[in-house]
């Protein structure tokens, strides 16, 4: 176990948020949302970004994902300052290197489930046929194979989020960014999805940054970053969770995970 921790410490830094400030312009007022966030995430971590509603979690997440332009500061991903680049560069970067699971499932309504999963490949310039070959493997991975030819909106919330997970993995991303993917799910579906995300992240060595405010899910994260009013108030390693990495089944069963600083 100790070895594992050491390994984690040695792992290279993949996300580095430096002095990130963001304020929204409303009328004649500037309303600050993020007050100089500094955050470093290393390879293989499963970081849960937690905090009360309106504390700026999603804004931070979107800034890291390259959608929300920070007022000050920047984000480095693998030493690449993403906010010094063009919009198209960021679009390309998101497409090829980051998987994204939004809070609510968003779909191309006219396409089937498997075609929707294939979308990142299509955006990257591949044909639908080529992308569907990969999508077919991923849909099996998330256990939704029999729904391939349905319309996404015919599925339940939990099923849709599994599909969204499959879609986020299509181009084999290095990072996965998820904005409260279990926010609209019942407990059971939420647990199932979290287990799936965690298993996949381990299997494919994907670094995960996820926003949640469901305390039941803290057990899944290897690190819990707590935000209040646009600032990080605590940043803790979830040791218990780390020790249970290989025993996810048990964690799920007992639900006894404690947060240890």
């Amino acid at each position, binding site marked *: 176990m100790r070895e594992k921790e050491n390994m984690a410490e040695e792992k290279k830094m993949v996300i580095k948020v430096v002095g990130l400030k963001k304020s929204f312009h409303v009328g004649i007022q500037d309303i600050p949302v993020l007050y100089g966030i500094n955050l470093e995430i290393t390879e293989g971590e499963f970081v849960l970004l937690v905090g009360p509603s309106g504390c700026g979690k999603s804004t931070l997440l979107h800034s890291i994902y390259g959608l929300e332009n920070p007022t000050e500061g920047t984000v480095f991903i693998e030493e690449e300052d993403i906010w010094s680049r063009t919009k198209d560069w960021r*679009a390309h970067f998101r497409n090829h290197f980051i998987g994204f699971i939004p809070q609510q499932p968003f779909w191309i309504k*006219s396409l089937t489930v498997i075609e929707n999963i294939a979308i*990142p490949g299509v955006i990257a310039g591949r*044909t639908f046929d080529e992308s569907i070959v990969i999508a077919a493997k991923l849909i099996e991975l998330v256990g939704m194979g029999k729904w391939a030819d349905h319309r996404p909106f015919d599925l339940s919330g939990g099923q849709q989020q599994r599909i969204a997970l499959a879609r986020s*993995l299509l181009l084999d991303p290095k990072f996965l960014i998820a904005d409260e993917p279990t926010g609209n799910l019942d407990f059971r579906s939420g647990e199932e999805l979290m287990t799936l995300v965690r298993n996949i992240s381990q299997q494919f060595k994907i670094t995960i940054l996820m926003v949640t405010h469901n305390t039941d899910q803290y057990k899944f994260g290897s690190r819990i970053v707590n935000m209040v009013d646009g600032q990080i108030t605590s940043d803790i390693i979830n040791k218990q969770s780390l020790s249970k990495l290989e025993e996810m089944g048990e964690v799920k069963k007992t639900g006894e995970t404690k947060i240890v600083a």
Partner: protein
Amino acid sequence: MSFFSHQKKNEIARTQKVRTRFSHMRISSVLFIGYRNMFANRMRSILTIGGVAIGIGVITLLISLGFGVQEMVIHEVTKNNPSDIIDITNKSLESFVLLDKNTLERIRGIDGIEQVEIRSSIGGKLFQGDSQTDVVINAVSRHYLDLARSDVSQTLREKIFTEPEGILITPKLANLLGFENPSESIGKTIEYSAVVTDDMLADVEDVPEETPKNEHENMVTIVGIINDQTKDDAVYAYISIEEIRERYGGVTGQFAKARVKNESSIESVRLQIEQTAFVTESVIDTIADINSFFLIVRSILIVFGVIIMSISAMGMLNTLSISLLQRTKEVGILKALGTKRTDIFKIFIFEAFLISFLGGIIGLVFGYGAARGVNYLMNIFAIRYGVVASSFVEVPTAFVISIVIFIFFLGLITGIFPAMRASKIHALEALRYE
């Protein structure tokens, strides 16, 4: 796992190599999404494409009939009036100039003229048994019919000259003479008289020396039936002018037809003929009249077409705008997943092109089909009423090309604004949009 790792390596390598050249969606994928979206909103798509198809179809129908009828009319007009022929007539009865020997020589002397043939239309009567009929007797020179009536066969045209005292009559005239079936009249000998006054006589080239025969001995044989091209009930006859001259003396021509050596010199030849106090007509004048008439018809059709297409275009714009509103979230997720602005633009503009081109092609095909259908129905009626069936559907290549250009611009103009708006949508705004 190895599959994904391998794929990822390739991806990184590719991105590092071409940092500034980003991959874009394939046109085939863009079209596929457009097609699926149209299919998902079937009724709306059918109505919009139908609107464009009806617009283009009506224009195609009207224009193809317009051009077709114009072609047919010109063809019919020029069939018996080749464009190298000039009609020579008198200006008015007050200053009537006879086409006597001198006048004809003068006309023949004009540079560029190849041949001049004359006709004299004389009022007269035909007698058959107890029945008699008033008739216009057209006394014509040897090759007049060659220039005037190419619809009549060569043998028939020559019969009045090759057979002694032959006459050609119209079917109606045969009926009036008592022959129920006009062909029964062929070979029958009938009597005729013509009203030839002194002022119709002048110095002609081949005045017969013998004195005119007794009026009642004017016997002719019907050698053929000639249909009139415009009227079924026309009553006239053709006879050789020599025959008339033998009986009535030097009857001159009142009308002439001249053939020019070179079609391009026709205008200068006409000018010279007109200097000899005659008026000239050429089929070129008629064609010009026909063309200017059809130009007006087409202009009216174009106005109709513009109105119809404006309605279709507004329908299309409406559909595309609604489509964009309904798909704001789709645009949002596409952008969030890394779709570039130009690709979003392409998705919407290509959907507009899909609608306009599908509508346009369906419209062209159905418009042409409808025109052919109208042609077919008209021909059924034509045949029933004894008129020769003809084709009056004409789709000029230039029209097809302009329709293709038009539907391209229709797609572009109706698609460009929704596409621009879509490409400017911010991913987060779209994702927050409820």
